[in-house]
């Protein structure tokens, strides 16, 4: 796959990330997919597994402004979006942009802050703009949020409202590195962090161009049908209280387009859809309490649905 990519930038970005991240190629790849599809990522993980490093490498590779917000219970919405301050010299209010005004944002532990502050972030993600004191401020483009949340069983968290979860294109887990990888992490920790040496491989305009190309990746009607069948399958499933919405179908298609692009293809395969379905759909369905008690996870349900939908292997009869 690495050979003769129609766009070598993709390989270079992934290579950059690999320089600072050991293993976890799929996480890097999926993050890139979300970035290219113009979506956001929710990482559900414990601290200290290298999220920041990865996002910074990503930001550096595309020469983007990187901001980080550490969410705490006392964080206010204005701390995120920015605030207008009265300047006595100029005799007027001046807007001081908050960290949300960057290109690539790491929103750490968003479930530690109050729902009010969460909404400020989520509104910005959805609308690509924020309104402060009656003035609408456009966010910079491209705009990519990677939010992390601690597993919700932890004390002192405000779970994200279900309706807001589907603002994220993908939800994934990073997990701990395996033993070999962790030894390699220690080795690298003895040297200077290589993050400083990373060179950008593309600028922001170039990235917008890539996003445009991703939109043109071909999706055949058979694939659209396949996507809809899978999403529809979550709605009727016995363990599911509320299935994925049509927004889920759109997200799955967009993600599949970006994934096909990352994998050097200008058309989508059922394989792309199958691979992405758990990442795209699992945070968009609400399980019944019985299923939760039985310990069935949403990923498992999505995988079961995918296993039940036949892959299209012939052209649609028109």
């Amino acid at each position: 796959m690495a050979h003769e990519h129609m766009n070598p930038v993709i390989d270079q970005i992934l290579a950059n990330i690999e320089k600072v991240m050991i293993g976890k190629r799929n996480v890097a790849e999926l993050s890139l997919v979300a970035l290219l599809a113009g979506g956001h990522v929710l990482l559900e993980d414990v601290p200290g597994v290298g999220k920041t490093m990865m996002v910074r490498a990503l930001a550096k590779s595309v020469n983007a402004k990187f901001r980080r917000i550490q969410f705490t219970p006392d964080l206010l919405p204005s701390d995120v979006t920015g605030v207008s301050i009265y300047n006595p010299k100029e005799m007027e209010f001046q807007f001081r942009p908050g960290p949300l005004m960057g290109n690539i944002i790491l929103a750490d532990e968003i479930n530690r802050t109050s729902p009010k502050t969460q909404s400020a972030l989520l509104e910005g993600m959805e609308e690509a703009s924020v309104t402060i004191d009656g003035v609408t401020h456009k966010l910079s483009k491209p705009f990519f949020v990677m939010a992390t949340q601690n597993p919700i069983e932890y004390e002192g968290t405000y779970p994200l409202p279900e309706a807001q979860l589907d603002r994220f294109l993908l939800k994934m887990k990073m997990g701990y590195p395996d033993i070999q990888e962790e030894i390699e992490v220690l080795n690298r920790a003895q040297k200077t962090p290589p993050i400083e040496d990373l060179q950008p491989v593309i600028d922001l305009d170039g990235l917008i161009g890539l996003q445009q190309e991703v939109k043109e990746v071909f999706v055949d009607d058979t694939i659209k049908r396949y996507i809809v069948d899978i999403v529809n399958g979550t709605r009727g499933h016995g363990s599911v209280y509320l299935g994925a919405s049509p927004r889920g179908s759109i997200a799955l298609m967009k993600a599949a387009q970006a994934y096909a692009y990352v994998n050097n293809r200008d058309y989508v395969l059922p394989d792309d859809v199958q691979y992405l379905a758990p990442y795209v759909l699992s945070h968009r369905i609400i399980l019944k309490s019985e299923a939760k008690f039985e310990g069935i996870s949403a990923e498992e349900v999505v995988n079961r649905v995918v296993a039940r939908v036949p892959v299209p292997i012939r052209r649609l009869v028109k």
Partner: protein
Amino acid sequence: MIKRDFPTFLLYVFGFLLLWEWLRPVEQLTDTDNIETFIIFLIVAFAGSYLRLKWIWQLLINAFFILFSVNRLYYEGGFFQPDWLNAFLSDMTENLGLIFARNWNDLTDEFRTILFFVLLWLMVYLLHYWLLRQQRIFIFFFMTLVYITVLDTFTEYNATVAIVRTVGAGFAVMGMLTYFRISMREHGSQSFSMKKWMVPLVGMIAFSVLLGMAAPKAAPIWPDPVPYLTAAKGQDGSDGPGGISRIGYGSNDERLGGPFIGDNTTVFTIESNGKHYWKVETKDIYTGKGWVASGSTPIDFTKADLVPVFSIPSSVETRDETARITSVKESSLIVYPAGIQRFIEVNVPERYPIRIDTTTEKIKNLKTNGYSVDFKVPRYKAIDLRKPTGFDPTVMNQEFYERYTKIPENLPARIKQLTEEITAGKTNWFDKAKAVESYFGNIEYTYDQKNVALPGEEDDYVDQFLFDTKVGYCDNFSTSMAVMLRTIGIPTRWVKGFTGGEFTEYTQGDESKEIYQITNNNAHSWVEAFIPGQGWVPFEPTKGYSNGLSIDYTSGETTSRTQTPAPAPAPKPQKEEIDEAPAKAKDSSYDFTAIWSAIEKFFNNNWLSLVVWFLVIAAVVWVLYRIRGKWVPYIFMFRYRFKKQDDTIGTAYLILLKQLDRYGLKRRENQTLSSYARYIDSFFSTREMTRLTNSYEQYLYHQTLPKGSWDDNRELWENLIKKTIA
């Protein structure tokens, strides 16, 4: 897998019963004798299979049985006298030669018997396979039913009981097999016992069989499908209730009447001196609706012998003639002139037993393209014909007389009254017969083929014609005359055959003879009356026909051709008919066509071979189906070699998927093509499937393909297909 226990034994018994049903009609419908030998063979073969003897023992036992039976059936000496083996082996070699020469007809009975044994042996194996391995028998059961019903419909085989037996055995065996299949699927867990299954099964079968037997049966939609089928094949359509028959020779006369259409197909050409009527058979019992034969008394003779039909007494003056009959196609319909002496120049061996049924005087087992006959042409003297005036037990056998004067008990009395009126004043049998014969020349009676009634349930065929319709063709005229004479005690019989046909040309050579062409339109029926001392004398009551009989009315000075002097002067329309008669369609209707009768004859004669062929073809088709994975791909490979378009991959790839599936490499429904391709490639250790799948994915999910990609793809595709055949 399956134990040799009691249920298995039952399966074998039912399998045997089903197979037996195939043998039963063979005995009745063909010349196969000693059918019990074959049945015992079946039992032996089934027993070997049931007891799971080693194959070598089965082979030896079965082969020994076959040899022993052949020896018993075809050789005089005992089995242990070695000399018969030489004869047997040379016979086998000879027959093998005949097979390669495709000379099927000359195969000896002995060889056919062996073939039949082998066929049965195969069937036993197949049944074993179906019952114990496949555990499915439906096709065989269904074919058995079809076989029996077809035979019941088209032959004299009566399957009333056979169908009940077959249904019973068939359902029992299918029910048991279903049980085995289910318990197999449940991995032998005896969740329900055999008994619990069998009791309701037996009950249901018994109930449905009893219900089927007791329930009232709807009348058939077609009174008899055979004439219906024939009519459906007719050229000018076949409408109207009762159907329109096509003219030609048919052997069933149980129900006469109804219209028919002409058929100008030539059946025979005949070289002879003068025109003669050609007989095929006679019938002696009038039923009120038609004619049947009182029985069957087959007698064999060789071509050196006189033909054992009632000959012309020596008191009648005769002259000798020969005639050559040539059929258009090889046919078993044998015509001969009255007064036949011998068959000569017939293509059968010297000692070949020609069989004739002396009741109907029909030649049964001759199948030939042509033959010659020696025969005598009588010249009756009116003075002798007029001698008999009544029944005289001293010159005529009482039983014989009763047989030929028998009339149905419910024959309407007015027929006899009419006959008595017509014959009033005549004293002797001959004059009475002549009077009745000429009575039909009366203007009231019209010859017609179209507007002819079919007698209803209550009608008498003769009565309806004589008094009600008065329109008809030869069957109406001849039957009426025969029945009328019988009412006044003159013995008659009804004769079927062909008229003299149409003169075409003279033969080449010194002894020039005339050549007559006989078509289906010339099929005809007439009457013979028995006159003591003179034999069976033919009469021709049908309007517009003449049988060319010569009768010396004076002391021998005048020879007149009958018919013409007797009837009243014929008015014009009849004259026209006479002119038209030889040329155009007319004549008798025997209810179905010659084509059908040919088919029927073919069916009757080639019975066994048809069954054998059918079974062989069925077996071949079945085997081909089983191994389709081996040969179907070659057809596809050949076909796709000539395709050029790139999107051929669309169909080709799906064929490959199917072939791989048959090969045993199944794709799960939710498995994507590329992951399946990786699986296939790992199985065959290639990269070909992945490459081909990439192309197909482009075709399917991208709707585009690089130009000229099919050349490469075809190569990949063929390689993969070949891997599945190897």
